[in-house]
């Protein structure tokens, strides 16, 4: 919560925090109340700020793992369960979340504990997204309470399920604007034996895009493809200070080694090659996932931009020498700018390189008040989204301004 929001809230005695302890609690609070902003751990303070004060619907009281049997590769948890608790249980079961939910705390300077509901509501996906799917692809089922106070179940606990409309896809990435989830079910996968990263040093953004595309055209099963221009790469003690193109491989050790060798041969045109071990690989990719290269304690604008893989470097080129790095084979651009005057330029650049979307994930409160943080949808799509929102929340009890 921003300082301004907090002040305004403190000044308005009518504005309250609601903290349900159960799904039934949640339903009765929604029935009896209005004007809710849904939050989990409050670590993903992203979105448009607007003035009217709102009641906080704090979901962290609805917490706890409900069912986890490693052999079924599924976990069911209450939505307010801290990710840390989930990771702990998974570690014990030798498993992990394949979608690598990113943790925004370093970048945004937020406190609190990220929750699984928050990760799913923001479709928080890490570097593996471009091959193994987004958070939404691991998300199997949910229980939620709509704006009428009805408790609804959607999806289920099995991997394949086409029974009726796939409502859970709408919940993932809705940023709490259509309904609070009380319970979520998601796929988990076995831990890998080892991981390693092939690094190509000293190549340009364009060549890196080509090298990553070549790697993805091989059967080597790369599960991370990122490029760090020199000014970013310099921040990593695991790297040697030149620009670094990173290709991650995971699996059984023998197989990883074989595939690294194969990749090295295929990419032999790039002569400066290096291999990061398991530990270094984990450190570097976690850091890229959590955007720590831009975790500088400031409120300088940071954009998360999704475009086609080969369009990423074109987009960055629009900004001249820029603070940027690439994930998802070049299709995800993290871009840090200075000053608040770039919004139109960013949106125009996305359009120019073939389309996609840009989200202003970090900005000063003042900036967040004056611009659309999320990419405006085209009018026809926006109209459908508006109608869908109304069907979840006909009386407008949930705050949607965040995505406005």
């Amino acid at each position: 919560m921003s300082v301004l929001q907090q002040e305004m809230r403190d000044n308005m005695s009518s504005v309250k925090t609601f903290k349900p302890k159960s799904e039934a609690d949640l339903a009765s609070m929604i029935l009896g109340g209005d004007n809710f902003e849904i939050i989990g751990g409050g670590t993903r303070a992203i979105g448009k700020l607007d003035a009217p004060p709102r009641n906080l619907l704090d979901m962290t009281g609805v917490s706890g793992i409900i069912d986890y049997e490693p052999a079924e590769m599924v976990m069911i948890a209450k939505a307010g369960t801290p990710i840390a608790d989930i990771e702990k249980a998974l570690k014990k079961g030798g498993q992990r979340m394949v979608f690598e939910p990113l943790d925004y705390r370093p970048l945004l300077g937020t406190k609190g504990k990220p929750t699984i509901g928050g990760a799913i509501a923001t479709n928080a996906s890490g570097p593996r997204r471009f091959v193994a799917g987004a958070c939404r692809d691991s998300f199997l089922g949910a229980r939620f309470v709509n704006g009428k106070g009805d408790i609804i179940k959607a999806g289920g606990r099995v991997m394949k399920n086409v029974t009726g409309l796939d409502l859970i896809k709408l919940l993932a990435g809705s940023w709490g604007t259509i309904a609070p989830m009380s319970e979520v079910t998601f796929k988990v996968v076995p831990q890998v034996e080892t991981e390693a990263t092939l690094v190509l040093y000293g190549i340009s953004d364009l060549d890196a895009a080509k090298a990553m595309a070549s790697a993805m055209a091989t059967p080597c099963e790369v599960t991370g493809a990122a490029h760090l221009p020199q000014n970013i790469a310099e921040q990593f003690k695991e790297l040697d200070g030149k620009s670094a193109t990173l290709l991650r491989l995971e699996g059984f050790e023998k197989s990883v080694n074989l595939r690294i060798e194969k990749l090295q041969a295929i990419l032999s045109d790039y002569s400066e090659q290096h291999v990061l071990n398991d530990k270094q690989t984990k450190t570097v990719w976690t850091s890229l996932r959590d955007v720590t290269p831009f975790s500088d304690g400031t409120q300088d604008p940071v954009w998360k931009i999704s475009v086609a893989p080969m369009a990423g470097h074109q987009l960055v080129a629009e900004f001249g020498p820029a603070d940027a790095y690439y994930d998802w084979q070049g299709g995800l651009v993290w871009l840090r700018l200075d000053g608040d005057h770039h919004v139109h330029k960013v949106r125009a650049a996305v359009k120019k390189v073939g389309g996609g979307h840009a989200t202003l994930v970090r900005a000063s409160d003042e900036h967040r008040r004056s611009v659309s943080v999320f990419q405006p949808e085209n009018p026809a799509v926006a109209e459908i989204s508006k109608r869908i929102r109304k069907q979840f929340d006909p009386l407008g009890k949930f705050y949607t301004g965040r995505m406005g």
Partner: protein
Amino acid sequence: MTATEMTSETSSGIQMPKPDQAILARREEIVSALKAIVPGEGVVDNETEMRPFETDGFLAYRFMPLAVVLPETTEQIAQVLKYLAQEGVPVIPRGAGTSLSGGAIPQEDAVIVGLSRMIKILDTNYENRTLTVQAGATNLSISDAVASDGFFYAPDPSSQLACSIGGNIGMNSGGAHCLKYGVTTNNLLGVKMVLIDGTVVEIGGEHLDAPGLDLLGIICGSEGQLGIVTEATVRLIAKPAGARPVMFGFDTSEDAGACVADIIGTGIVPVAIEFMDKPAIDICEAFAKAGYPMDVNALLIVEVEGSDEEMDDMLARIVTIAKRHKVKVVKESQSATEAALIWKGRKSAFGATGRIADYICMDGTVPLGQLPHVLNETARIVESYGLRVANVFHAGDGNMHPLILYNINDPIEAQKAEDCGMDLLKLCVDAGGCLTGEHGVGIEKRDLMLYQYTQEDLDQQMAVRAAFDPEWILNPSKVFPFEARGNERPATGNA
């Protein structure tokens, strides 16, 4: 008038709405309006030529549509939908008509909008690993187009030679190789879609994820109720260095089922784990001569991929696990031809079964740990109806396909088969699973939806449906049971 009053019983169990006489009476006028929009061969209106459109892969039901339109462009589809919506005429989107749940079956007062003339590949980009195609193109045509360059499109329904990508999106189809690569929704990047009022929207593209609500996610698997998809952008994947199917034979289905759960639980993700019981082995072997072991009661086809060293390594691990489950026969394919035969047998399982009997194919999914229990119960239930069953399915993700064998010309047996099927689906729901893993609800499972969902659950789904199609013009008789619709939601599009 309530939805249920409007319905009429057809030949057997599943109800369809009574055709709207006012629409039937205006047939000529409607046909000529459609001909003005789609000239030439694009409108089919004589009975003989409409015959193939009466039903789909769910053969037990058939209805003659009012007319069939086969447009060639998105713009034509936009005009057709706008016109039909204005006139209140129900619309049935159709790809290749291979749906096994009756998703593409028309009704007498409806116009079928078929995509069979929109089959062009529009763009292929290997660096971005994307391909954009018109929605009527077959699933296999995508993989065929990129195979020589070392790529493929992953979801591979057994019907891939015939089924369209638009139909795959309609049903969120899967296939044998989805265990590793996911189903349609996990491989779809964007669509161009025509809404019921004729608006053309583009959702997604070559980039990942949505800027706002994930509309692509709700469209995929919506069974033609939200709009007509005219183009799709899909993700391509680099072909593996090699692939090898290996057969594991067991004495009992329980052993095979437990072995599946164990393989998955260990962290090995083969590309496919397919299960066949004894009747299925017999049927498929007689058809494909694939060399399936005949002295076992359950067979797993496990496909691994990668380089030779990787496959050897992974197979060694799988064999160790299988031994723990008393595997009786392990048989590796010795050549590409043999491998192809093994898959031919599996992929033609439905067709081969169709040569010895009529069958209905169920499609429930269950949690992996429930496989042995559900297989046992399946045998018990089918026997209690005095029928026979063959099980051949995607075991790695718990997606059951019991084929209930019966004689379609014997009305009593046909009814028994239908009832038996419903019991098997309830069994899947009771075991913590769902009614359908990949074939969709259509009309087949429509009336069981309240077994899996509450009225409130369905109300929420129907509300979202209405956000796209408020008058219920698109495929109006599918998915949602009439009894759950209430007064404001018609069973046909013209209330």
